[in-house]
């Protein structure tokens, strides 16, 4: 008993040098518990990250900005050279006979050219165009004989619009999103064969793939296969970085499994296809197969052949290393490897594989993703959108913006500037600059814009922001004010052009002078405008009242603060070319105010229309007054300060316009319009220093060169019923008999019997006048 007691006591007091197994130690359990807690917390965190990004906005998608789509129909004005220019921008290839979308051919005679054009399929707001081969003729710059090879008769065919720019997020990534259903089967086949054969079987990580890849690479003696699954690649690209570390690899594997648990294979593949990096265009990264197909082949992914899709998949491993433009042989070898893997996996029959392996890469020479080519116009688009959409939405939601830009007109404007500006700069210095705007007369759509003589310059936009004195460009507003009072003024009303001086209350004086320093006596109103006589204009404006002229400017659409002094009558008023376009637009469109629009529609990335910018008009000036003013502005071009245009333009193209020159020739302006287009051009120096240029010798030359390059209709305003033509003799500008010698017909609004009459002195009119006297 005592011995037992002793052994129990001895056992209780067992010495500490007897050790227990480490896994039974309480500390071990604590450590394990803490580790488990950390691991679980980390897994929860990873899971949250995976789901947050996958289910949220996955990418910051840049807005895509498109030029207007070219519409082809019988009777359309179209110049072949301009058409070819636009097709080259759209990466249409000229071939002997088009067999696939994106090709065209020319034929026919020199007077009647035949065009065969295989239009790419595309969709626009409210309409979709399937790929179709059309044939038409261009004769005297007009389309006729339009037909389609599919036998379906369609009156209008729309060519896919030129994507002119993107509005990028900070990351500067370019993407064209595709849904799973839009991904070609051949692309999926190529991806699976090359990157992940067991994609549809594994759960994110495939140990078997790793082993197989190691075996294949050893057999080939080089790396021909990767061991990562597509899911792992997606995780690496989408969530992590390409930094090589065990920690990253572990995270990658865990996140891959999580993705597989939460999302379907289709969703993962779709994200992979849209996320993968496939090249670089300057500062812009090309992501996704959708964008890459445009970048390398100039066409939508759905229109790519199997060998082209294989090339895209070949670049997954290294877009720079396998770049088909920089390393064509390497790219070709890799592409053929992809094709052989497809053939081995049964996706491609052997004969087809052999045939495809012999094909060239087929890559277009110039990437279709270009940096912003039209910065001045895009600037206007952004300003017009910013109020409605905000900068963040513009840069990240993948909006599609369909603008009014006409690439052919834009090119014509740029070429006109390139041709004329060097000769102007030769006499005036290299710092001579230009701003220009072209709009559609009947629509108010902004069709072309230049903010700098270098059209690609992204900086100060003179078309929108160069606020310059407009000089004589303001005179039509003065004369229109007069013509709106037909009981007081008509085109033959005489105004005294003799110099005068006025003194203000503060003692200042104002003495307007003519450009030629001459006094022209009593001049008819239309001549005072067409010859741009300052003195007569100032006298007329003072008679009408500065307030009245300001009111006319407001009616015409001028919104900015106006100079309240008489000097405004001669153009001591600053405006940008765009602001000038606004008020001349009203004159050109027969007295109808219409906002100048650069955008037609905005849609979501999926094509749902968000905004449409409707056509709005407001008649602000009587048609009769505008008709009279337009007659005088045509006279400016026939015999006034703008008459030099007819050295370059055909006499039958009736145009109207006004030159403008400011003090010391600091600004050279021209604003003029035909039946279709209004163009406003400013030439000058940013530091406001003098040049040798007048409106006629500077801006008008650029305008003339532009108008000579574009097919258009002459100005042909319908005569209002309240207007009649009467003959006026040129001595006292009294009404005279028809066909009197030295007389000319002028339109008159209102009762002519109240006007002074003078019998014709000579010519047939004299006889008519004699007979009229009997009655």
């Amino acid at each position, binding site marked *: 008993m005592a011995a037992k007691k002793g052994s129990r006591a001895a056992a209780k007091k067992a010495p500490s040098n007897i050790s227990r197994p480490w896994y039974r130690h309480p500390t071990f359990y604590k450590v394990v518990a803490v580790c488990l807690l950390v691991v679980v917390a980390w897994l929860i965190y990873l899971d949250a990250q995976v789901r947050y990004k996958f289910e949220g906005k996955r990418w910051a998608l840049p807005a895509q900005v498109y030029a207007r789509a070219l*519409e082809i*129909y*019988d*009777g*359309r*004005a179209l110049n072949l050279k301009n058409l070819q220019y636009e097709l080259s921008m759209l990466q249409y290839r000229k071939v002997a006979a088009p067999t696939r979308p994106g090709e065209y051919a020319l034929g026919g005679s020199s007077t009647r050219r035949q065009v065969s054009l295989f239009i790419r399929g595309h969709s626009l707001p*409210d309409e979709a165009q399937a790929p179709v081969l059309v044939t038409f003729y261009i004769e*005297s*710059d*007009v389309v006729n004989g339009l037909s389609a090879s599919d036998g379906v008769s369609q*009156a*209008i065919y729309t060519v896919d619009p030129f994507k002119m720019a993107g509005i990028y997020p900070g990351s500067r990534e370019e993407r064209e999103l595709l849904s799973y259903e839009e991904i070609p089967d051949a692309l999926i086949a190529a991806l699976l064969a090359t990157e992940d054969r067991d994609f549809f079987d594994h759960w994110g990580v495939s140990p078997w793939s790793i082993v197989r890849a190691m075996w294949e690479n050893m057999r080939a003696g080089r790396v021909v296969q990767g061991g990562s699954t597509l899911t792992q690649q997606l995780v690496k690209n989408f969530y992590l970085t390409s930094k090589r570390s065990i920690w990253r690899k572990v995270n990658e594997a865990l996140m891959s499994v999580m993705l597989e648990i939460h999302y379907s294979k289709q969703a993962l593949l779709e994200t992979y296809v849209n996320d993968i990096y496939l090249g670089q265009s300057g500062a812009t990264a090309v992501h996704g197969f959708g964008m890459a197909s445009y970048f390398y082949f100039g066409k939508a992914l759905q229109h790519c052949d199997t060998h082209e899709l294989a090339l895209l998949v070949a670049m997954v491993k290294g877009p720079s290393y396998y770049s088909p433009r920089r390393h064509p042989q390497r790219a070709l070898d890799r592409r053929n490897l992809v094709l052989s893997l497809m053939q081995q996996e049964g996706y491609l029959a052997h004969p087809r594989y052999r045939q495809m392996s012999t094909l060239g890469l087929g890559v277009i020479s110039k990437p279709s993703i270009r940096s912003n080519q039209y910065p001045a116009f895009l600037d206007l688009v952004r300003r017009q959108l910013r109020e409605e959409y905000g900068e963040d939405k513009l840069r990240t939601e993948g909006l599609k913006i369909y603008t009014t830009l006409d690439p052919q007109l834009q090119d014509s404007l740029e070429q006109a500037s390139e041709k004329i500006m060097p000769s102007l700069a030769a006499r005036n210095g290299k710092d001579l600059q230009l701003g220009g705007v072209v709009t*559609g*007369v*009947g*629509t108010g759509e902004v069709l072309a814009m230049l903010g700098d003589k270098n059209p690609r310059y992204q900086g100060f936009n003179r078309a929108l922001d160069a606020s310059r004195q407009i000089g004589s460009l303001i005179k039509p507003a003065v004369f229109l004010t007069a013509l709106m009072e037909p009981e007081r003024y008509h085109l033959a009303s005489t105004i005294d052009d003799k110099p005068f001086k006025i003194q203000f209350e503060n003692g200042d004086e104002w003495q307007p002078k003519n450009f030629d320093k001459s006094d022209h006596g009593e001049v008819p109103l239309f001549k005072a405008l067409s010859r741009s006589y300052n003195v007569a204009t100032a006298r007329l404006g003072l008679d009408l009242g500065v307030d009245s002229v300001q009111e006319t400017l407001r009616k015409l659409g001028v919104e900015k603060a106006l100079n309240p002094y008489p000097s405004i009558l001669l153009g001591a008023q600053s405006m940008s070319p765009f602001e000038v376009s606004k008020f001349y637009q009203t004159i050109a469109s*027969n*007295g*109808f105010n219409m906002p100048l629009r650069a955008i037609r529609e905005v849609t979501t990335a999926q094509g749902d229309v968000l905004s449409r910018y409707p*056509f*709005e*008009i*407001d*008649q602000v000036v009587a*048609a009769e007054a505008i008709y009279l003013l337009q007659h005088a502005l045509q006279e400016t071009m026939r015999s006034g300060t703008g008459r030099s245009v007819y050295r370059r*333009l*055909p*006499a*039958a*193209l009736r145009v109207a316009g006004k030159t403008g020159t400011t003090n010391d020739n600091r600004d050279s302006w021209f604003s003029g319009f035909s*039946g*279709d287009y209004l163009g406003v051009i400013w030439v000058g120096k940013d530091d406001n220093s003098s040049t040798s240029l007048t409106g006629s010798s500077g801006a008008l030359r650029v305008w003339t060169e532009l*108008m*000579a390059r574009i*097919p*258009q*209709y*002459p100005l*042909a305003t*319908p*005569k*209002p*019923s309240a207007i*009649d*033509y*009467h003959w006026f003799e040129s001595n006292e500008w009294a009404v005279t008999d*028809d*066909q009197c010698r030295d007389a000319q*017909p002028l339109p008159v609004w209102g009762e002519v019997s109240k006007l002074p009459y003078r019998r014709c002195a000579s010519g*047939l009119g004299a*006889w*008519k006048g*004699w*007979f*009229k006297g009997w009655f």
Partner: protein
Amino acid sequence: MQRIIGLFCLISLLMVAGCSSVSRQQVVAVDSRSGSAASASKEKIEHPVPPVVSKLLQGIAQDLQAGSYRSAEKALRQAQRLSVNEPRVYLYWGQWAEQQGEWHQAEQMYRRAVSLSNANSVIQRRAVRALNQLNSTDN
């Protein structure tokens, strides 16, 4: 007697010459392009209306009658792009706007149709009538 007859004929001729008058210059019509011109005595030069626009206008008229306003609006926008100075486009646009209850826009479209059509033409008379009806409805 012969002298009297001769004098009578001369006076008649002179009267005829005196009563006729040309109130405006002959205008030059151009063909569709700026590069060539042809003489004509037309008072107004028109943009030739492409056949597709005439077809569109027919469709628009039918759509308006049938109450298919969305389709009509889409066609109106297209017709305006293709033939921006065709007065019928604005006449129909005015009708469309009236159906939508957009009175101000309707009025402006009718005014535009008036401004773009020949004096006293059928289109102008229709537009003026529509404008008067609109204004009388407003009153």
